[in-house]
Structures are given as C-alpha cells and as structure tokens.
C-alpha cells in the first residue's frame, strides 16, 4: 500500500511541478501542438476502427 501511495504522491508532485508549460507559445508552436492532437486522434480512431472490424469478424 505504501508503494502505491508513494506512487500517487509522486504523480501528483509531477503534475504540480509541470502544470504550466514553459515553452514560448508562438503561433508556430500552437499550430504544431494542434496538428499533433489531430494526428493522434486520427491514429487512435483508425486503431479503434480496426479493433471493431476485427472483433465483428
């Protein structure tokens, strides 16, 4: 139990420490991060599609 408590505390500490991104948020940075999110959503969507179609077969 102590291990899991320490782990959760550690994760909370990391979340607190890195809550605010430090990179200068220029237009280029925003476009890149938005593109990455769209890319990942599309990729995960494809994987889910593959999973469902394989499962239905």
């Amino acid at each position: 139990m102590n291990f899991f408590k320490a782990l959760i505390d550690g994760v909370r500490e990391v979340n607190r420490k890195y809550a605010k991104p430090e990179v200068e948020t220029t237009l280029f940075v925003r476009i890149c991060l938005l593109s990455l999110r769209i890319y990942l959503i599309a990729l995960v969507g494809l994987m889910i599609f593959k999973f469902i179609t394989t499962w239905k077969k």
Partner: protein
Amino acid sequence: MSRARRRLLLFLAVLGPGVIVMVADNDAGGITTYTVTGAKYGMHLLWFLILLGPVAYYVQEMTVRLGAVTKRGHAEAIFRAFGRFWGWFSLLDLVLTDWLTMITEFVGMTAAMSIFHIPPLLTVVCCWLIMGAMILTGRYWTWEKIALLFCAINLIYIPAAFLVHPTLHDLLYNSFVPHFPPGGFTNDLFFLLMANVGTTIAPWMLFFQQSSVVDKGLVEKDVKFGKLDTGFGAVLTVVVAVVLIIVCGQLLNGATVDDAAAAATQIMPTSRVIGTLIAIGLFDAGLLGAICISLASSWAFGEVFGWAHSLNKKVKEAPWFYAYYFFDLLLAGTVVLIPRAPLVLITLFVQVIATTLLPPALVFLILLLNDKKTMGARVNTRWQNIVNISIVLVIIVLSTLYGISAVFPNLFGNQ
C-alpha cells in the same frame, strides 16, 4: 602536447553516446530489416541506406545540443516545455514502446543463439547477468567502455562482405546511382523502404542520446565533438547496414527470408563462416539494443520523478533507477520464455505504438531547438531548420504509412 593531439584526446573523451546510439540503432529488428532487404532486392537499395545516414545524424545531433545546453534529458525537457499532458503521453508511450522493443531484442538474441543449439532460457539468463553486471559498476565511463566494446563486435559483419566478393562496379553503381530494383516501384518495395526508415529513427534513440549526454556530463563547449561522435556513429551504422545488404544480396538474392536468424541458417550450407558471423552479430545487436533501450526508459522515469538517475550512482544511491532497469529487463526476458507468447503480435504492436510516439517526439525536438529561452545561442539556424524540418516531415509521413500498413496490410495493395 600538439594541438592536433589534444583535439584527438578531447574527441576520444567525448566519444560514446553518439557511437553507441547509432550502432545500437542496428538492433535485432534493424538487422532483420537489412537481411530481408538484401535477400529480396540484392544490392539495388544500397543508395537508399546510404541516404539514411545523414538523416539519422541530423536528427540525433539535435539531442546532443539540447542535452549539453539544458543538462536535462528528453523526457524532462518535454514535461518542462510542453506541460503534463504531452509529458505523460511521451513518457508512457516511451515506456510501452521500449518494453515491447526489448522483447523483440530478446527474441533476436534467443533466435541467434539457438543456431548454436543454446536453449533460450540459458541465453536470457546470460543476457540478464551481462546487462546487470554492466550497470552495477557504479561508473558511467565503465559502462560506456563496455558498450563501445559491444559496438566494435557489431562490426563483425564487415569481413563477411569481403568473403562474398561483390564486384566494384556493382558496389559503386548501387551505392551512388539512385534507382529502383527490377520490377520498379511496387507495394512490397514501398513497405520495405518504410521499414528501413522506421528502423533508422526510433523514439528511444532521442531519449537515450540526450540522457546519455547529460549523464556523461557534456557541456556546451563539447557540442562540436559530440556532433563528431554522432557523425562517426552514423557512418558506422550505415557501414553495418550496407555490409549486411551486400552479404544477403550476394548469397540469398531472390530467396524468401523472414528474419536475420533465418538468413544466418540459410547461409550456413553455403558458408559456415558467414552464417556464424551473422548469428553472432544478431546476438550482439539485440544485446546492445536491449542495453540502450532499457536505460532510456530508466533515465526518463528518473528525470521526471526526480529520482537519482545516473550510472555514476551506486545502487543504494539511486535504488528506483536501478530497480526500474532490472524490472524492465526481467519482464522483457520472461515474456520470450513463455511458451506460445504472441511474439508476432508484439512485433506488430512495436511498429504501431512507435508510430504514435515518433512524430510528437520529433516535433517537440524541433520546437525545443527553436526556443531561444531554452537553447540560447545554440538555437537552430535557418539552414538547420530547413534541413531538420524537411527530414522530420518525411519521417513522419513514412513512419505513419508504415504504422498504418502494419495494421491494415492490404491498404496499399498486397505485400
């Protein structure tokens, strides 16, 4: 002491992270890709492999600058710059990718040793002992010297190329005249080209080299030699790839080969020496890959959670760092020993999950190298941006297609 001698000594002192990451890039999966490429297309794709050398150099060179300037590993740099969402995404994806890739390294090592009739259990236990002993020395420099020794063993393929006697004309033509093999540009060829790109740039390499630069204690003034180290490593990685393609192109041209161990077995009747060299090289490649990949994850966890995370620390000074390293090692090795473990599925997963991590990791690298607050005078120049962004875009497109084609094999036609 003369200036040239002093510079040589400085270079030798800095030599390490670049050579190790580049040679380890030719891991068990990489060796398999090269043997399949050689067997299927002969020496026709040598020019493509040679082109991948500069690509790997330009990407990895950025991690040297980033590590030397910020004194932070890649995982910590992402958390700090882009916040917790992208930080956790990168860390967890890295951990999963690394663990699955580690399994493929153990698969390669056990397959290589089974050629010499050594049972998988014995191979795995010996690997655990070697990898454990390497990091328990308590000194980064000792670990690095042993890793460099394994890099030197990776060059065992070179004599094999001389034994197959390729003609100079074929060698020069296929190396320096870009062309497609007979049959033209087919789906099979496209898949193999993507596989070669995929094996040249892997997410763990970015995390490993940056953390390694930090752990070694390189600083801004060492960047020049760090780049040389990376360039030297890029040459070695291309040499190994080219040599393997020459050997398999000469001895297995047109044969169907599934992996490097199968290539070694098929070559044995023709040349026992070359078959043996390929098997030893495959084992070494898997071992080197596993050493670097498990360290990449341990360093990343240590950086983010604030644990002591240096090879210069003793076990009792950095218990979590070493605990994670051994946990990773034991878990990956154990999976290989499970009868009927879904190893093919795991290999497929590696390709897919690496595809989700590589583009973000590369984009973050470009953004960090353009952040003046982070990089100061070492920020990317316009020329570096043109080259690096072009490379990153091409890699993203190819690795994405590779990942998708692994899940949907018929999407681009039959393979």
